[in-house]
């Protein structure tokens, strides 16, 4: 286990070297948050309640989303793994006495930790200064949000790991990103909070893994009854299920890939 914590810390330190990018990221997230919030406020001024969401719920989700979006990396960046598969550098990754999935998970959690603390928290703080957000009032509620964010980061990793792992078979994963870069943000509730979709559509999307990265953490923050089982526990269970299933699939495909597939390049 020591090796994973060492890789986690190395990942954290690696991203901490990108200071200007972090500041630019906070600015981008805040500006997008303001624009989205303004649009939704205009909508809710016409219809004050849509499928259980009011204006404050929607604006809160917008800023939870902006705080989380870089951490779960739903819009990228892809894991370096894809480029390493394409160039054959993954060969050196496979020469370590450490399983590939665990190594990349540890590194990405280091990145996610840096991102949530130094990009997510400031973005949310800017949101609370500019708008009235509905944030949790108790320590227990905050703990549930924190757990949800952690699970969202694991799901974000597992999905990107699977996208890139496909590179062992199809070589270039940019096509996958072209599709998931469009579908992912819609299905996750980045583009619009899912309650703004027709209820049947929203229910289907809520059950898919992308919703577990943004929509479910937002609903846990808001304490919504639309969560699976009507409570935070149900939402966390759904997220944990996706995290486990996707990691398991990743592990299976990793061993299939390394057994059958050719490492590129001389």
């Amino acid at each position: 286990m020591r090796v994973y914590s060492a890789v986690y810390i190395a990942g954290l330190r690696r991203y901490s070297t990108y200071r200007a990018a972090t500041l630019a990221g906070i600015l981008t997230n805040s500006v997008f948050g303001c624009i989205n919030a303004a649009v939704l406020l205009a909508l809710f001024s016409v219809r004050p309640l849509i499928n259980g969401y009011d204006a404050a719920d929607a604006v809160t989700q917008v800023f939870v989303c902006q705080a989380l979006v870089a951490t779960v990396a739903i819009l990228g960046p892809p894991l370096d793994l894809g480029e390493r598969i394409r160039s054959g550098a993954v060969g050196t990754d496979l020469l370590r006495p450490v399983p590939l999935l665990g190594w990349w998970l540890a590194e990405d959690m280091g990145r996610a930790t840096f991102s949530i603390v130094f990009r997510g928290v400031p973005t949310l703080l800017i949101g609370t200064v500019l708008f009235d957000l509905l944030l949790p009032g108790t320590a227990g509620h905050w703990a549930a949000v924190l757990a949800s964010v952690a699970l969202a980061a694991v799901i974000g990793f597992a999905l990107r790991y699977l996208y890139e792992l496909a590179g062992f078979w199809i070589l270039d994963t940019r096509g996958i990103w072209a599709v998931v870069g469009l579908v992912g943000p819609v299905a996750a509730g980045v583009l619009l909070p899912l309650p703004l979709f027709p209820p049947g559509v929203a229910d289907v999307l809520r059950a898919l893994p992308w919703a577990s990265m943004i929509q479910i953490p937002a609903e846990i923050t808001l304490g919504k009854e639309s969560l699976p089982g009507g409570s935070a526990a149900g939402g966390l269970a759904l997220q944990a299920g996706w995290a486990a299933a996707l990691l398991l699939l990743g592990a299976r495909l990793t061993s299939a890939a390394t057994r059958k597939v050719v490492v590129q390049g001389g």
Partner: protein
Amino acid sequence: MTSAHSDDAVIEAVGLGRDFVLSEGPLFRRRRRTVAAVRGIDLTVRAGEVVGYLGPNGAGKSSTMKMLTGILTPTSGSLRVLGMEPARERTRLASHIGVVFGQRTTLWWDLPLKDSLELTRHMYRVPAADHARRLAELTGLLELGPFLATPVRQLSLGQRMRGDLTAALLHGPRLLVLDEPTIGLDVVSKATIREFLLRLNAEEGTTILLTTHDLGDVERLCDRVVVIDHGSLAYDGDLAGLRAAVPVPRVLVVDLAEPSPPLEVAGARFVRAEGPRQWLELEDNPSAVIARVAAGNEIADLTLREPDIEGVVAALYRGAEPRPA
């Protein structure tokens, strides 16, 4: 052979082969073609040997290296490295070998070199005291001191290579596999790395297998040379034996007093001329040829060139060329 177990086979390959299936032709009419990258290789490397694995591009060197380290599964034959089956026991084998690919790095690009080296301690579960001792040793030998705190992306190629070598050796592997370890390095960096490898082999008995296109590496380092061509072994033995197996004639370089028409001398064949300088391939005893040239011409200077290993290997490749690829 400084190792107490010098009879131990570190690498044992019997009939080792790897095929690749290529799809070619237009979509919907693709045909599959099987290409053998490596075929029927028998190779035994014993503890303490330094073996140069040579061959032209595409000969099957890298495929062999990948099979030895477990990242490519052989399609035929059997292979054991340190008693393990590499493809099946890749992760376990990785703890006992060190690998450096000259064109790749295992170091973390954005972090100081010492961070990557510290990480290897956890990766290979080396006790902290052993790690510190060995790191101090390698830092001294490879002169890492001045750039240990520098982010890897700012290192020169020579510095990075020394860092990569250190990362591959901190856990004290019994076998070191090097894929073009001196590629792109200047003369001084090459010399540093060669001296270091020789010392590692002499003092710790580390077995070294290296591929290279730099024949200086081979001449300086390898007591055994294995040449692969079109996927099969073309030669396995020492350097002197390789030179004997593929006789490449010695060349006499004659500087005449003034430019002259090509010399015609018994026992030598004219190769080319450049002003007053002429190159003659010797078929006979050099002293006899020199005497004959001197008899009819005024000689300003003379040099006798021994064939270098580059010429020998090239001749070996050419000899194998007529076989279908």
